[in-house]
């Protein structure tokens, strides 16, 4: 025990923040801190408290700084919070800077040798002799590094009042099946907890108190949710190429496919998964498999979409189905590959040269990641075109609590595909004839017997019968029909959802911005500014979006990129209302928080 260990001071008069705080943990990546942080998050979740976690990790395998923030919120706000009430500082390299940035009054748990307590006098310092504790609790020196982080879980649990039984349960869950690892980690956690019990006075700035908000909920990340959506949608061909933050979508799918996509009779696989040589090849596989009648998909991020864009245009023009997941990260170029952004909005809306328009789905939570992924395969086959499911690193790789997913009972929609008998009966079939007036034509699949239905697919000019044509009228007929098809999609894509507080001022956002917008709406309302919120869930815009834009006096478009890409699409789509759209932006690579939305909207309102 060192003499510097004063009882944590409590800022005068502030009352205890119960189930309403953020913790930031600073560690070195590759040190096993991810397990420790997930255990802490899960233990709070098991205490019945809404909780969310954000891993701010570097683009590196081991040795660089990484931060993890855990937010507990009785009210259910799960966006990142810009301020933290507790800091756990394990990384010597960033400790000084972390202290400099700390919010006044924060509780700071740190590795004793870092000697941080002299740096500021408005923080409550708790030095912990981690090395001593780990040496005593773990007999194997080579494992010390890995279990050291568990010690802070024990210390923090003691200070926050988290039930140790929940912590132990969380460890068992996290390390399922690995008996020895479970025991080691549980010992380390107890060592931290017991030490804190004996040596630290209790504090009452921040506390976890048992609640019942999370009963029956799951914890999942968006990539896993999307993978599950694809699993239930019956995807049969996957071509992919690894890229952060999209890899784990396919990798999780592979794990599930091992278990659930074997023919029970033969043990053979009902899905082909091929790691291709690059994203161009992945796109080729997806489109040709879709063309041949399979349900196909790939998962990538911005750089991959850039590479795929020639193929996406081919898919659009020859009308081949396929599902393209874009788990967006911070661009341009390699950008910040492990940070989040919504900066591929325009890329995915119009991917490829020439006049192209794509159906995009924007899930905003875990249930939608699951459901929209399922629906994307129906839309791809119904509309015979590439479909983008656009998420981002924040949705895709962070932990979110969610209601369990509802079973997708809707039968698969395989679209307008003619079989042998139908082909035999039709007199004058043309691959690109718009028989129904909805812009969607009837297709045949290669390998259909009977001697009818064969056609030649080409990315060059073609007529209704898929014959080569350079005639202006044939060209225009096809591209105008494609536009008609896009119009048809307006009644098939997910409608927006609303959170209206009763106002002619609109807020519009999509995807991972949702929790921050909801919180911002409440903060603004408490300050006297009511807003109506529309969360966009797809392109093209549906009638509900038209009505919202028309009705509102102003529309604050909240998005996570520099250029206001979605707002640009709105201005282009509704030129008569162009001046209504005001951009509220966040693009530093961290997930958006409520405060930045409140500040920007307030500034606009004061103008």
């Amino acid at each position: 025990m060192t003499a510097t260990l004063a009882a944590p001071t409590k800022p005068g008069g502030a009352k205890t923040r119960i189930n309403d705080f953020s913790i930031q943990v600073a560690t070195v990546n590759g040190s096993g801190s991810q397990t420790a942080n997930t255990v802490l998050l899960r233990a709070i979740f098991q205490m019945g408290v809404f909780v969310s976690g954000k891993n701010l990790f570097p683009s590196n395998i081991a040795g660089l700084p990484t931060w993890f923030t855990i937010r507990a919120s009785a009210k259910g706000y799960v966006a990142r919070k810009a301020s933290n009430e507790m800091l756990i500082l394990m990384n010597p390299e960033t400790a000084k800077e972390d202290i400099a940035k700390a919010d006044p009054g924060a509780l700071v748990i740190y590795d004793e040798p870092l000697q941080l307590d002299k740096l500021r006098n408005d923080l409550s310092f708790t030095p912990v002799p981690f090395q001593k504790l780990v040496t005593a609790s773990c007999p194997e020196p080579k494992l010390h590094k890995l279990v050291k982080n568990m010690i802070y879980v024990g210390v923090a649990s003691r200070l926050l009042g988290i039930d140790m039984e929940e912590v132990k349960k969380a460890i068992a869950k996290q390390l399922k099946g690995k008996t020895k690892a479970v025991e080691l980690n549980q010992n380390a956690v107890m060592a931290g907890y017991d030490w804190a019990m004996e040596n630290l006075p209790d504090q009452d700035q921040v506390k976890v108190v048992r609640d019942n908000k999370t009963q029956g909920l799951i914890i999942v990340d968006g990539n896993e949710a999307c993978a599950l959506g694809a699993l239930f949608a019956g995807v049969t061909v996957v071509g992919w190429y690894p890229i952060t933050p999209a890899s784990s979508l396919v990798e999780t799918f592979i794990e599930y496919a091992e278990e659930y996509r074997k023919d029970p009779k033969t043990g053979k696989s009902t899905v082909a998964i091929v790691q291709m040589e690059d994203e161009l090849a992945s796109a080729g596989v997806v489109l040709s498999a879709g063309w041949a009648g399979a349900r196909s998909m790939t998962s990538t991020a911005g750089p991959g979409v850039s590479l795929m864009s020639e193929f996406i245009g081919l898919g659009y023009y020859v009308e081949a189905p396929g599902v393209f997941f874009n788990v967006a990260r911070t661009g341009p170029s390699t950008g910040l590959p492990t940070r989040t952004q919504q900066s591929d909005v325009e890329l995915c809306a119009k991917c490829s040269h020439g006049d192209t328009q794509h159906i995009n789905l924007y899930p905003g939570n875990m249930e939608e990641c699951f459901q929209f992924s399922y629906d994307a395969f129906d839309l791809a086959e119904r509309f015979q075109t590439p479909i983008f499911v656009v998420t981002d690193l924040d949705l895709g790789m962070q932990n979110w609590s969610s209601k369990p997913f509802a079973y997708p009972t809707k039968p698969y929609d395989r679209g307008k595909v003619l079989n042998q008998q139908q082909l035999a009966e039709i007199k004058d079939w043309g691959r690109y004839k718009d028989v129904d007036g909805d812009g969607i034509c009837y297709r045949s699949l290669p390998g259909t017997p009977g001697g009818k239905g064969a056609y030649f697919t080409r990315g060059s000019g073609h007529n209704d019968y898929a014959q080569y044509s350079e005639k202006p009228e044939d060209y225009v007929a096809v591209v105008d029909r494609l536009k008609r098809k896009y119009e048809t999609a307006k009644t098939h894509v997910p409608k927006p959802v609303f959170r209206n507080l009763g106002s002619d001022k609109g807020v519009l956002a999509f995807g991972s911005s949702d929790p921050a917008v909801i919180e911002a709406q409440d903060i603004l309302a408490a300050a006297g500014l009511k807003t109506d919120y529309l969360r966009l869930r797809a392109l093209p815009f549906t009638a509900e979006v038209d009505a919202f834009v028309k009705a509102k006096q102003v529309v604050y478009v909240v998005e996570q990129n520099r250029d206001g890409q979605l707002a640009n699409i709105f201005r282009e789509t509704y030129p008569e209302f162009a001046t209504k759209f005001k951009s509220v932006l966040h693009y530093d690579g961290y997930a958006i928080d409520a405060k930045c939305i409140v500040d920007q909207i307030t500034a606009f309102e004061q103008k």
Partner: protein
Amino acid sequence: MSTATPSAPNTPAAPTNKLGFTKQDYVGSKSTLCAGCGHDAITAQIINAAFESSIEGYRVTKYSGIGCSSKTPAYFMNQGWGFNSVHGRMPSIATGASLANRNLINIGVSGDGDSMSIGMGQFVHAVRRNIPMIYIIEDNGVYGLTKGQFSATADKGAHLKSGAVNDLPPIDPCTLAIELGCGFVARCFSGNPKQLNTILKAAFAYEGTVVLDVISPCVTFNNHDASTRSYKHVKDHDFPLHDLGFVQYSEVEDVEIPAGQTEVVTFPDGSKVAIKAIHEGYDPTDRFGAMKAIHESMAKGEFLTGLLYINPTQPPLPQVLNLVDEPLASLDETLLKPSPAVLDEIMQALM
């Protein structure tokens, strides 16, 4: 057996194949290439070989990239489905479709530009994966469609009509394919239809990737006197390795292959290739020997043609992936969609 209706017999009756089809049933749309283009001669042999091998047209899929060569899938077998994709990406198109439906008979047509420059990556990886397909490179040493620039197979020192000289060494698709583990590598000359026909028939019987480099003169941009890809030059430097015979599995019982100097390679389906050596000491089952001989002949400016390398034992990709026998494209919801109990089990694990 195909259920398509063979065309009504003409008078005098046109010969039909085992499926009852005439050769006319294997043709495509009219070619729009330059008169005399080597590519058209290749198209003609694809039609002949498919007819003679009684290929079921509805199972045929034809893929290509971009180029004069890549236009040709429209000129044969209208009974099959075609997919003319983007420049250099034919292999990935063949990969996806062949995985979606393993019953398809896949023919890819590409050019030397399409495969050896922009599409090199896809060529290499498709061969490495052993996609079930006949991969034909119609090799004229230039980019025909963009009006005659050098391609990566052009010989060092070769001249364009304009006088421009190629300073870089050529890439040889055949030795590259052998290096990549391809089990069926051949080179032909579009001016030697008999050899091409036999090799195509053998290619139809092969399960994995066939790499077939066909020297195919571009009469418009690369047929001048100084060209090393002109009809005259190639004819003068063409060294057929062997006399080839091909016997389809269905005919093996009826055909007797003469013993003696003839080597016989048997495919998994029972079909046989009979190889009677012309070039002494060339053994197409000896991978390193073949590489050496090809390199030596290239150094002399010769084209060794014929079956360069054969090893019909590698499993094609659908087999490597252990896919169900039925085409993935025809699996339905009952097999593909896990039950509510499965979702429940997964949700429990996430709680």
